[in-house]
């Protein structure tokens, strides 16, 4: 019997090894084949967009006939990216394209459809008016609320019109209805559920004060609430039947919760909804403000929407049961709500789009958002709740490969921020790449992370190299008690890059290597890396994250104690990064080089605080895997296509050293990797 069981296990593991495919980076790092899907108000037409080999395609499908026609195509080299797409009525849609590679050009386009029972045709016009649609006013045919912006150098002039699509196309608003009641310097005008302009905000950058305004029934702007946005959150949802304003805020509670707010007294009223542990993300009321329809939040890193209407609850349960173990959200629906576009996703699923007809309860699979991913298996993240010595629970996510392909290396990956950012249980390309290559990846929502209340967030302020790293270490110790790993390395971007270095400094016996991406390593430099940062208000803002700008920060700046970094370090950075200035990375590289410490660096010429092109992103990941393998002397990853993949990745790395626009020309390194690709 024992022999049979062993044989079964052996066959199973052999099968895993044999069936395990290494995912090519070109496949994994690609643009979505289906980036958006949007129904028109009647639910007859479906507008979809996506990228095929980097080419942007926008199509419309007549659902009755399933006839599709292309309405916009742009070649990859032209650099078009879709930013926004929305229907303004049954026959018209507007979409916005953005071209980073062409000096950030933004263009809005109008598509007008003609359809009968059997066919659909279209006409496309470039919108000459610059600005954005505040509200598509889907109930009014061919009318939108448009924020018209004219630039004069850095000064902008804003006007708001209730305009037709042709007025937008011609940039001629002489006959449009002008909304005169504007507040100077206000931005982000918003409508209420009745599509009336109701909210706006102003920001005093010197005082760091955000003021929310609302338009009362007498058409006068009233101050709604003034607060420090780096400390508090105050998000108006809409006016309720009783005249109170519904807001999601944390001014009266630790957790962001849904409250009634009296605009006259500026006092919080009744608590409408509060979660036990998590901050609320959104809330939705019906058009009259009578009924709370839903609230959403992230529970264990997964998006949860709670419905209060019985019918919607029923439908949500149905979706829960259909897509067990996955998260889902409605990304578009027709006016009556019986046709919905549903996005289903998880930590192991990069997104599937379904067309859900609630009349006959059918959910037609439209497509995967990343069709190239369909052929591969991805690994789900396990959510962990880890008790800390300080008494709080630390939420963490562990993504592991199948045992048969594991290389027994734990990669600890702290997130960026550190304050007000968080990790979620969602598909993340770099994590899936690393897990596919055999690594286990641990993400930790340490103190300072968003979503667990104001105190938890505030507890991370000024804790660079201190309580934040204590939380991560608690999680790493917990993992080491539960699982066995031969090696542990730290890898992270932005604050995560800093944290990775500090983890290795604080725990020299635990970490065997560090990958510090786009990080900050000299904390006082955060306050003076360019002349705009030395302004008083900027210093105040940063002090709320980093802590007081004084000499003590040197004690937590690895540049000044680099000799304590005892393991090989790979530093990657973007040459045009102004958020975590490129200078930070070069300082760390400089001092480690002076100390003759093992350090490698990759400076991406066109990258900012992250990559703006796919080639650089692929190059960095391939190099990171190679760096870890060389450092830890690991064998090749497990997979039946390993030789092909490694050959491709060595070529990819070599190409990066031959291209001035990736990491710059380094002929020696290029030769080394070319030679390795031939092995």
């Amino acid at each position, binding site marked *: 019997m024992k022999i049979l069981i062993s044989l079964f296990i052996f066959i199973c593991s052999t099968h895993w090894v044999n069936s395990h495919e290494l995912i090519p980076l070109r496949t994994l790092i690609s643009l979505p084949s289906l980036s958006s899907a949007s129904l028109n108000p009647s639910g007859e037409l479906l507008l979809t967009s996506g990228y095929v080999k980097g080419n942007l395609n926008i199509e419309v499908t007549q659902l009755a006939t399933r006839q599709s026609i292309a309405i916009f195509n742009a070649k990859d080299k032209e650099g078009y990216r879709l930013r926004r797409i929305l229907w303004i009525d049954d026959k018209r849609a507007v979409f916005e394209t953005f071209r980073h590679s*062409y*000096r*950030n*050009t933004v263009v809005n386009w109008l598509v007008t459809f003609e359809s009968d029972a059997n066919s659909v045709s279209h006409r496309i016009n470039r919108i000459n008016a*610059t600005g954005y649609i505040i509200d598509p006013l889907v109930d009014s045919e061919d009318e939108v609320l448009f924020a018209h912006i004219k*630039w004069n*150098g*850095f000064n902008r002039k804003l006007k708001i019109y209730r305009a037709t699509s042709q007025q937008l196309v011609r940039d001629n608003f002489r006959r449009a209805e002008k909304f005169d009641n504007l507040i100077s310097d206000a931005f982000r005008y918003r409508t209420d559920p009745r599509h009336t302009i109701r909210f706006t905000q102003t920001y005093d950058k010197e005082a760091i004060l955000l003021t929310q305004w609302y338009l009362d029934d007498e058409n006068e702007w009233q101050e709604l609430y003034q607060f420090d946005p780096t400390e508090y959150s105050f998000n108006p949802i809409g006016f309720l039947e009783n005249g109170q304003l519904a807001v999601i805020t944390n001014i009266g509670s630790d957790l962001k919760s849904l409250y009634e707010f009296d605009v006259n007294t500026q006092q919080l009223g009744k608590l409408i909804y509060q979660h036990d542990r998590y901050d609320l993300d959104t809330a939705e009321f019906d058009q009259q403000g009578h009924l709370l329809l839903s609230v959403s939040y992230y529970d264990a890193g997964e998006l949860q929407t709670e419905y209060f209407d019985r019918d919607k609850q029923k439908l949500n349960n149905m979706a829960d049961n259909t897509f067990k173990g996955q998260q889902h959200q409605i990304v578009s629906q027709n006016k009556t709500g019986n046709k919905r576009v549903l996005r289903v996703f998880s930590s192991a699923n990069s997104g599937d789009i379904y067309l859900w007809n609630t009349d006959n309860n059918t959910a037609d699979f439209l497509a995967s958002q990343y069709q190239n991913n369909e052929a591969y298996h991805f690994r789900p993240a396990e959510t962990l709740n880890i008790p800390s010595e300080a008494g709080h629970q630390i939420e963490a996510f562990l993504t592991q490969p199948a045992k048969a392909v594991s290389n027994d290396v734990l990669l600890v990956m702290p997130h960026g921020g550190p304050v007000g950012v968080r990790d979620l249980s969602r598909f993340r390309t770099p994590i899936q790449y690393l897990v596919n290559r055999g690594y286990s990846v641990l993400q930790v929502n340490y103190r300072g992370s968003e979503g667990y209340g104001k105190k938890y967030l505030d507890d991370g302020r000024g804790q660079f190299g201190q309580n934040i790293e204590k939380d991560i270490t608690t999680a790493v110790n917990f993992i080491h008690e539960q699982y066995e790993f031969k090696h542990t390395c730290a890898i992270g971007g932005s604050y995560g890059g800093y944290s990775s270095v500090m983890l290795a400094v604080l725990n020299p016996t635990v970490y065997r290597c560090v990958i510090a991406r786009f990080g900050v390593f*000299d904390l*006082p*430099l955060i*306050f*003076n*890396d*360019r*002349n*705009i*940062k*030395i*302004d008083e208000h900027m210093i105040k803002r940063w002090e709320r994250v980093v802590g007081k700008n004084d*000499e003590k920060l*040197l004690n937590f700046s690895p*540049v*000044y*104690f*680099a*000799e304590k970094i005892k393991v090989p370090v790979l530093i990657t950075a973007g040459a*045009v990064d*102004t958020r975590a*200035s*490129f*200078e930070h990375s*070069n*300082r760390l*590289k*400089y*001092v480690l080089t*002076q*100390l*003759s*410490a093992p350090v490698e660096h990759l400076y991406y010429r066109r990258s900012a605080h992250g990559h703006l092109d796919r080639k650089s992103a692929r190059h960095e990941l391939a190099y990171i895997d190679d760096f870890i393998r060389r450092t830890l002397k690991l064998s090749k990853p497990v997979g039946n296509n390993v030789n092909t993949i490694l050959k491709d990745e060595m070529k990819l790395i070599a190409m990066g050293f031959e291209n001035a626009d990736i990491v710059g020309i380094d002929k020696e390194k290029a030769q080394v990797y070319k030679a390795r690709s031939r092995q």
Partner: protein
Amino acid sequence: MLICLHEYFSTRLTKAKLVFCFVLCLFAVGCSQTLKPMTTQQSANSSTSKLTGYILFGLQSDAHIEHINIMGVPPLTYSPKNSLQHNHFILAEIPVGFYAFSSVETGLGLIEADGDHAWSFKIDSQKINYVGHLELQSLFKWCHCYRLQLANKSSFAVEYLQQTHTELLQQTDLVYKGPGSDTFIDFAMAQYRARAQYQVESMPELETALKPVSVPKGQLSKGDAK
């Protein structure tokens, strides 16, 4: 020139001297001095007097630059040879005193250093004064909008000097005079000098690890020109 004026005044202030100095200043302000970057050979044989110091600044631009204008006595102008500049450093000997980046001429127009931020710096005598990295980036196609900022890229400046002007760096102090205050150059130079010392003492085993150098406490190099 300021020192010259200071010395002149400190002897005995007369109306005639005052007029003379005023005329001198006007003359100096009117005639801008063209910055000529020093070559490695020039810097190796260079020595400053009490009245001059070295200015070092970096330049990075994705736009064509015709001139960079620096206010001061005398006003300075730098005209790059190449139209686009990527991490290019300019080292030149100039009179001591206070200066400020004032504008960049691109050919399409003048981009002024906005009054909201710090552009000024002081040149100390007989020192290499790293005053920052001037970055010009075009923002949008549809407007003549550029982002002009003065960045702190001290480590690149140190590397540049170590690679290109080694002899000058060995003989001359490098100080940070860019935006804000920064200890890095002091730290890096202490490390650099310790390494140089070690090389002299223990050649040829250069690969042996160096002992770390601590940050000189309480010696934040003040960016005193704001």
